[in-house]
């Protein structure tokens, strides 16, 4: 009694409420130790932290108290069989959780013997190592039994200096009396448990905090703590004094700072139930396999505290207490303030189930509908952690996480005092619970995002590195290859030189060798003369060879083939020699060499030379013009020759054709050069001088004229012109392709490829034009394009597309869609017609048309769907 008299100073809890206690109902009878009532279902995650890991298999026989799941990680604890029997299943079962979800559980079919496994108590715990003792406690599956289920080992493993060890016997929540009755009946054991805790954390003082509404418990504890270094501290009843931080504040005046732990202020707090469980575990070696649970509520016939095996189903337990399902409006796990409705009564009792409350409707009515917040401020008066619930409510509604954090939502203990006092019946705590979870989720997402970012950046860096390596390798390879080719070339050149040197000695009969010899003899002559001589001699030889060939043909000579091949060779050589000559003559044009006028190529060269010589005195432009003229003439001549050669099936046709291409190339370059040289104004005048009959030259001339004209034009006009020109060219080319195809000409392919190129260009030009043109101009241009060339399908299509875009931009979405659909239908029809035509004709295009038809149809379907 002396302890009670010199009662220590307690501090007042800020805020708080005084709800009806309703504790007496369940305190009428002593703890009823219940036998095993049926199937035992033990969830692997009964505590906060990582779920335990099952170490038994289905079908395995287990004894009471045997560990069936081991802790996984530091914040985790073991699970033990609460009776002997067989492991029936390890499966998902409903558990006591507000989500109503299932969780993995070990299901044990009891064998009825309830046989203990070999227990290993630590009788002389004062001699054992602290860590061994903690390990023993954790392996006994002890977790906070007040409601949260935090593994006790974690709290006790602190290495900070502990000033106060506080045993929480507050049990402030209405209805619950599990700790109260435990203190009343088993005070001595609790005190022994406290001594174990004292040994573990070595506190300066030990306090048992009890509210003054539990006089019997206080008496029992005071009797049990007589002469021990343990103080029972009684303080006024108020909800929520039992919160860990609140109790610390009441008993010591110390405030655990936001986000901190009690150990930071030198306090360790343990629940009465946990203390008792630690005593059982250490002194008797019994793991946590049962707990005291309050069964209460008007829907139960007998309201009392029971010691129930973990894993017993809620339904069975309620039935034992005479549960009237029809009278209960719900079953609550925990108290009426912080508890929650149990979604499934098949869920088992776990380490944190301190109370099962089955209230009638008039006892705990469902809350009335929430009214608007009137800003009365009663909630902030009631808040034990000095928050501003009304502000938090607004932030929660707006999902303003920053605001919530600024107003310290995370310090909310979810006691429900604010909701309790709210005159508008706003379920404030629900808002806070959800918002807290959202904030945690956001933090989690952010973490994940940061991780993804690092991985993404790592990947980019890796790819970059790989690219760089590849590039380096490629460079190395190229270098190597280049080195190899130069070496090869060198050796080839060397070989050729050697061959040349060796040749005269070998066989003077060989015409090539002879030629080389002659060439050597003329080594001192100028290169141009040499080349001329070369050409002349080659021509002579060619003539000779031809004569021989003719003779051989007439005589049906055996050597016909040999003659023919040598003739071809000579012709090749002649061509190269002539090219060389041309080059040289370009450098130093001189009088036309004497040539065989019968040879058309030579004649052409001669004419070209002559014209070039004339050109010397002319201005570069005139020269170029002349060149172009002569080239076009030559091209024409060659073309006719080619045609003739082809008709005769002559072998020369090929050679002629190749030279024709060359000439055409030259013509193009000449034209380009000319274009460059000519000032913009002169071009139109110069252009007409070009041979109108040559389509290529004409085209080039037109292009030049146009380009020079364009110089003065705006980019848009230029582009338009370009497009025009391209359209025309495409048309022309298409016609040509058609004719070439009809004739089965080889050119068809080339023409087609060029046609494609032109079309690409056209598209690019169109795109550019679209970019350049302001929206207003588009319509005009579209119309213009349409009128340009109705025969060209590509241009026409583009024009139509533009026109459509123009129109549709002014239309409402519905109108647009309708138009689109009509348009698509038209196009499908058209395509179908074309397709049938193509099929009839066995055309290659049929496939392309088919695919495009399909595309059109899907588009139509999409549009139709969108309309619906």
């Amino acid at each position: 009694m002396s302890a009670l008299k010199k009662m220590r100073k307690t501090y007042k809890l800020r805020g708080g409420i005084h709800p009806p206690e309703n504790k007496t109902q369940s305190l009428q009878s002593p703890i009823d130790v219940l036998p095993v009532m049926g199937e035992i279902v033990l969830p692997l995650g009964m505590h906060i932290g990582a779920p335990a890991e099952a170490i038994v298999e289905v079908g395995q026989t287990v004894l009471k108290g045997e560990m069936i799941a081991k802790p996984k990680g530091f914040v985790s604890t073991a699970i033990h069989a609460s009776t002997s029997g067989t492991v029936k299943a390890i499966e998902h079962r409903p558990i006591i959780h507000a989500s109503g979800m299932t969780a993995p559980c070990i299901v044990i079919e009891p064998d009825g013997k309830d046989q203990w496994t070999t227990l290993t108590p630590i009788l002389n715990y004062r001699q054992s190592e602290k860590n061994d003792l903690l390990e023993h406690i954790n392996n006994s599956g002890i977790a906070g039994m007040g409601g949260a289920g935090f593994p006790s080992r974690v709290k006790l493993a602190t290495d900070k200096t502990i000033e106060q060890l506080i045993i929480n016997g507050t049990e402030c929540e209405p209805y619950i009396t599990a700790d109260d009755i435990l203190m009343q009946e088993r005070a001595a054991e609790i005190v022994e448990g406290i001594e174990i805790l004292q040994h573990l954390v070595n506190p300066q003082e030990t306090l048992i905090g009890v509210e003054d509404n539990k006089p019997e418990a206080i008496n029992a504890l005071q009797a049990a703590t007589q002469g021990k270094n343990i103080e029972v501290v009684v303080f006024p009843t108020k909800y929520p004094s039992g919160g860990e931080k609140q109790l610390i504040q009441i008993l010591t005046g110390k405030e655990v700072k936001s986000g901190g732990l009690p150990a930071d202020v030198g306090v360790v707090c343990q629940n009465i139930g946990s203390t008792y469980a630690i005593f059982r575990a250490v002194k008797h070696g019994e793991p946590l396999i049962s707990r005291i649970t309050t069964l209460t509520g008007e829907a139960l016939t007998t309201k009392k505290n029971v010691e129930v095996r973990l894993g017993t189903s809620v339904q069975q337990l309620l039935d034992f207490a005479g549960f009237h399902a029809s009278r209960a409006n719900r079953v609550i796990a925990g108290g009426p303030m912080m508890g929650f409705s149990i979604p499934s009564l098949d869920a088992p009792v776990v380490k944190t189930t301190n109370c099962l409350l089955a209230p009638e409707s008039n006892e705990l009515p469902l809350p009335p509908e929430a009214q608007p917040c009137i800003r009365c401020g009663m909630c902030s008066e009631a808040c034990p952690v000095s928050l501003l619930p009304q502000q938090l409510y607004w932030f929660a509604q707006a999902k303003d996480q920053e605001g919530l954090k600024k107003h310290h939502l995370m310090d909310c203990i979810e006691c429900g005092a604010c909701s309790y006092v709210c005159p508008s019946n706003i379920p404030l705590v629900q808002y806070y619970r959800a918002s807290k979870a959202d904030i945690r989720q956001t933090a989690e997402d952010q973490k994940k995002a940061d991780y993804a970012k690092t991985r993404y950046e790592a990947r980019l860096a890796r790819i970059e590195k790989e690219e760089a390596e590849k590039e380096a390798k490629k460079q190395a390879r190229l270098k190597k290859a280049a080195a190899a080719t130069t070496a090869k070339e060198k050796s080839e050149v060397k070989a050729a030189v050697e061959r040349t040197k060796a040749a005269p000695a070998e066989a003077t009969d060989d015409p090539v060798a002879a030629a080389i010899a002659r060439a050597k003899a003329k080594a001192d002559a100028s290169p141009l003369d040499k080349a001329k001589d070369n050409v002349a001699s080659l021509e002579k030889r060619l003539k000779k060879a031809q004569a021989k060939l003719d003779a051989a043909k007439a005589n049906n000579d055996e050597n016909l083939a040999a003659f023919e091949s040598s003739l071809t060779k000579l012709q090749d050589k002649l061509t190269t020699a002539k090219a060389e000559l041309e080059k040289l003559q370009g450098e130093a044009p001189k009088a036309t060499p004497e040539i065989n006028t019968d040879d058309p190529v030579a004649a052409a060269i001669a004419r070209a030379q002559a014209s070039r010589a004339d050109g010397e005195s002319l201005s570069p432009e005139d020269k170029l013009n002349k060149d172009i003229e002569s080239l076009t003439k030559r091209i024409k001549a060659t073309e006719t020759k080619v045609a003739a050669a082809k008709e005769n099936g002559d072998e020369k046709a090929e050679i002629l054709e190749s030279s024709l291409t060359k000439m055409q190339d030259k013509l193009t370059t000449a034209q380009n050069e000319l274009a460059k040289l000519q000032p913009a104004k002169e071009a139109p005048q110069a252009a007409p001088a070009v041979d109108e009959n040559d389509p290529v030259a004409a085209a080039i001339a037109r292009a030049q004229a146009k380009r020079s004209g364009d110089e003065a034009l705006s980019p848009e006009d230029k582009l338009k012109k370009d497009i025009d020109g391209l359209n025309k060219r495409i048309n022309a080319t298409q016609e040509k392709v058609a004719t070439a195809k009809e004739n089965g000409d080889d050119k068809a392919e080339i023409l087609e490829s060029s046609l494609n190129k032109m079309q690409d260009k056209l598209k690019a030009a169109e795109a550019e034009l679209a970019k350049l043109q302001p929206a207003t101009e588009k319509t005009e241009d579209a119309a213009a394009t349409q009128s340009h060339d109705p025969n060209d399908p590509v241009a026409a299509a583009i024009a139509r597309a533009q026109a459509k875009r123009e129109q549709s931009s002014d239309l409402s979405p519905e109108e647009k869609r309708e138009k689109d659909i009509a348009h698509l239908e038209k196009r499908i029809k058209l395509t179908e017609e074309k397709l049938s035509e193509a099929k009839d004709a066995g055309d290659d295009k049929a496939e392309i048309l088919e695919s495009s038809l399909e595309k059109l149809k899907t588009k139509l379907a999409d549009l139709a769907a969108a309309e619906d």
Partner: protein
Amino acid sequence: MIEFLTENALLAALIALGGLALVFGGILGFASVKFKVEGNPIVDQINDLLPQTQCGQCGFPGCKPYAEAIADGEEINRCPPGGEATIQHLADLLDVEVKPLDAEEKVPSVAFIREAECIGCTKCIQACPVDAILGAAKQMHTVIGSECTGCDLCTDPCPVDCIDMVPIETTMQTWHWDLPKTPAQSQLIATDRKGEVA
């Protein structure tokens, strides 16, 4: 010199001001070189708000490019994985109006490869922006679920369509209370008054 200056007050003032201008100009010039900020700092801030799925659903090849685009005036409502929350945060950061999402909000999901059907082409591996797919040529591939951002970029390249996007299931660990919507959902607290407040 000093005498000259005291006599010509105007000149003295000009020289003093000019000197000050030179000194401060020098300091500013030095500071602009010494404390030069590389890149646009707002881009990093925006990038931090984006969910880093690298999915490209915004039309930009990754979160950083979109962040850059936003900094250059692009709309903030282009990020389906981020959803309304991201838009809200971006709006707060940039002080612009919140806009409704320009697409359907996506359920967070992870890719899952039906391994029996996988032909081991490695196309998905190349497509994955966070290297969350494991596998080698002609070996079946699998997704490392914890690394997957659910960007959906791997499903298109798959030639045999063996990749599913599986919504992430809520577990006991991830479940949380929702905000109360109807009075029926808020039947837990404020219970003990025996109906005295109605």
